[in-house]
């Protein structure tokens, strides 16, 4: 069985555990700390050039991430691995607040949900093209205003926002 230089193994461990793109400066900082004196950039370049087993390593701008080689496409399609999972509860609640109370700012969403918003959620909903920003509120800090998109209407089969089913509105109105 092939063995990897320790810094390359560490690099792969980080990318595998992160489950998404990792910023190169952050990657470099951790690798230099755990493998002082080793050129992590060289290790990265080598992995980018050769890949590792079924994976390839991609570097775009200041991030890098893993991907399974194109040649395994037929195999993976046959596995039908990618079953849609339900939208996570925090994401669902955030989307509900935006849909029913738009336009809303991030602090308002946090107020409605009663918890602070973890950074990935708005990004995830944005990646799904269900929400977008539309201007800013004219209050201190000028927070961005979030609204749903036409793609949101299309995905949920709504002619317009007025067709959203009645959700109980809260005992108090939004701030």
């Amino acid at each position, binding site marked *: 069985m092939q063995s990897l230089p320790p810094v390359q193994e560490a690099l792969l461990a980080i990318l595998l555990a992160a489950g998404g793109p990792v910023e190169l400066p952050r990657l470099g900082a951790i690798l230099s700390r755990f493998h002082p004196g080793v050129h992590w950039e060289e290790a990265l370049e080598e992995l980018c050039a050769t890949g590792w087993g079924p994976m390839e390593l991609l570097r775009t701008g200041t991030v890098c991430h*893993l991907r*399974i080689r194109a040649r*395994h496409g037929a195999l993976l399609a046959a596995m039908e*691995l990618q079953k849609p999972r339900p939208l996570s509860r925090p994401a669902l609640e955030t*989307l509900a607040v935006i849909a029913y109370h738009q336009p809303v700012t991030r602090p308002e969403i946090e107020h409605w949900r009663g918890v602070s918003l973890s950074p990935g959620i708005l990004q995830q909903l944005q990646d799904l093209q269900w929400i977008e920003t539309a201007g800013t509120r004219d209050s201190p800090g000028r927070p961005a205003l979030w609204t749903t998109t036409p793609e949101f209407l299309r*995905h949920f089969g709504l002619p317009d926002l007025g067709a*959203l089913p009645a959700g109980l509105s809260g005992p108090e109105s939004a701030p």
Partner: protein
Amino acid sequence: MLLSTPEESGIRVEGERLEHLPDGLYVPPDALEIFLDRFSGPLDLLLWLIRRNRMDIRNIQVAEVTSQYLAYLEEARRRNLELASDYLLMAAWLAEIKARILLPVPPANGDTDMDPREELAHRLELLAEIQGQARALDALPLLGRDFWLPAAVPHERLAAPTPHADLAMLATALQVLARRPRPAIPAGHQIASPAFSLRQRMGELLALCQSLRRPLGILELLPDQPDRMLLGLSLLAVLELLRQRALRLLPGEDGSWEVIRV
């Protein structure tokens, strides 16, 4: 371990660890509230008392345990500690069990009531079981602390599927949110009070810079009075004046900064 139980950690008073509580009232002054907080409820306190007295759950000396339990409650009441009503309910139940033990056993009359002592033992066993299971869960390795899993690696031809969400889920989520207790809406930060206003503070700082005609360091810009509001306003005023380009930032000595009137 994610948590500690009263049994494991003992009671700490002013940093001193008390392995064995003195008899009489078992918790020294001022530690009672912390002590009671450690229990998840009255049943938990009772279970602890029974174990501390080295009694068998199946053979509880109800009178003894009841008097110890009531002593805690009495002490809590004397110190005006707020106890959940669950604690009082338990006291009433214990008193009832005690009374029924003292009464002569009525002849069998088809009464299907569980022997109250039996029921208490059963409830305590349930709690002991759960606590053991909670400890077992707590001892398991935990993702992100003790082990790590590789996340799904994407493939270009298999786009990540859109997560499933439909309108019913959306409406339900909103209903759940409406029922959830929320912190009161913060009143917003009232910066302008009759005594100080941002505009006024900006004017004062500007006048100060103009009159001195030299770069001013941070300490000179802050108010003399130890007033939090005025301190915040002063910092805000500096930032606002910098933003409006009425002041300019200069590098000061040893890495500090100074401002000067433009």
